[in-house]
């Protein structure tokens, strides 16, 4: 693109880093989980393998997980740069990253079942643009695989089966239900993102966006902060454990948000993220790029 001539190559490197190396807070959370399990237990063995895989992926510069997921981009930009050009470059970067084996060809035509082969397709990558009142550019990338995506779900309260009403208790019950239903299928120990309210689409989108939050980022909403803590504590009493083998750590983190809703609707959306929570930030300032 014209404003940043090296943009496409920057994004390829951004994708590589995201695919092969975990954020520090995620890796620390895995270390803490490892410390909690009994040495030699199945849970301990799983966490050892995970830690070894993290080390090897970083060293070899190979994807942590073969499912390099949906490539979710959030771009915050000043007035000026063309979002059309930025979008085109991001798509090109995804193709290039697929060629270099940082990404798997992960776009299958849903009607013909034909894999596009180059890593891109309809809504792959998924790019969201937002203009902001600053002169730098902030791009967030999340790679979210299909195994954990399949564990995501949405409830409409009241839920008769679970006896979950339209209140904080009802929300707590359905999020725990989603975690219990996921068992080991989402490659736990996982990260839970939830959203209360919104419509069906905005609610799920907001739930997924929670995975961008750093683990030590405290929720500004006191009710949600307390709810996150309760959910974290209770989910870890379920003893599902790493990979569903049993153990002390079932979830590594819980983050929530809320949106206003229509009087008739009360959605609670839950997004499950695997232990390989691949997210990174890229910054462009004064023509220079930085990846965090």
């Amino acid at each position, binding site marked *: 693109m014209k404003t940043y001539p090296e943009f496409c190559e920057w994004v390829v490197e951004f994708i590589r880093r995201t695919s092969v190396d975990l954020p520090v807070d995620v890796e620390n959370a895995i270390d803490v989980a490892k410390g909690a399990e009994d040495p030699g237990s199945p849970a301990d063995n799983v966490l050892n393998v995970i830690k070894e*895989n993290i080390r*090897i992926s970083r060293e070899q510069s190979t994807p942590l997980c073969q499912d390099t997921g949906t490539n979710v981009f959030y771009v915050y930009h000043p007035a000026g740069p063309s979002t059309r050009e930025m979008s085109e470059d991001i798509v090109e970067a995804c193709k290039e990253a697929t060629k270099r084996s940082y990404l798997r*060809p992960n776009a299958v035509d849903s009607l013909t079942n034909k894999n596009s082969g180059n890593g891109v397709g309809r809504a792959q990558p998924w790019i969201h643009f937002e203009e902001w009142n600053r002169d730098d550019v902030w791009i967030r990338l999340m790679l979210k695989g299909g195994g954990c995506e399949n564990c995501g779900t949405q409830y409409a309260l009241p839920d008769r089966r679970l006896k979950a009403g339209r209140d904080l208790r009802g929300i707590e019950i359905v999020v725990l239900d989603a975690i219990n239903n996921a*068992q080991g299928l989402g490659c736990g120990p996982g990260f839970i993102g939830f959203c209360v309210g919104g419509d069906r689409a905005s609610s799920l989108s907001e739930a997924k966006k929670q995975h961008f939050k750093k683990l030590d980022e405290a929720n500004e909403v006191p009710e949600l902060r307390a709810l996150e803590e309760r959910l974290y504590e*209770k989910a870890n009493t379920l003893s599902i454990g790493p990979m569903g083998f*049993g153990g002390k750590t079932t979830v590594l983190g819980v983050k929530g948000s809320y949106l206003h809703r229509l009087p008739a609707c009360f959605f609670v959306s839950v997004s499950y993220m695997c232990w390989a929570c691949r997210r990174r930030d890229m910054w462009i300032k004064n023509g220079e790029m930085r990846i965090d």
Partner: protein
Amino acid sequence: MTRLELPVSAEKISELKTGDVVKISGVMVTARDAAHKFLIEHFIERSPAPEEKDLYDKLSSVLKDGMIYHCGPVVAEENGKYRFVAAGPTTSSREEPYESHVIEKFGVRGIIGKGGMGDQTLEACKKFKSVYLHAVGGAASLLANSVVDVIDVYMKEEFGVPEAFWVIRVKDFDAVVTMDSHGNSLHKTIAKASSEIFNDLIRKISKG
């Protein structure tokens, strides 16, 4: 730790119990969603068409006393040779409608994947002497390093790289038996226990 060499006998498989840690070496084949649907529709619900006979024979020989790996790898092609770059397991439960028939038809001795499978597969493991082996989900770089050779690939154009049948040679591939040939499933045990805890939790939450 038990070492398994492929092909493996029914007797050897019968000795395995849930919780056993194994290292697998030999030739196996990857197969996931499109591949399972294909096996059922082309080779099980009907006889292979003449032009499919060659593929049928090749797959039969690797599947007999062999193992299926539920995996959609990242594969690099260098100088006309394929190499597995990232190759962890994919979620197995999607193959539940198909797997028991595949085990019966081809004499498969082991299914490698993640997340476990259901009662129909558990029953087939018991009846036809097979096991379900769990690899660590997401451990893709590590597991790809156990793939020492990519021998062949079938249906790559039709299914795409992640869903093709990749015939691979593995060495010391790490897995844990979570469903054995005696009707035991670690997944059922864990799910039952966690659901009891969950029911107790929601009772307490409802009471406030």
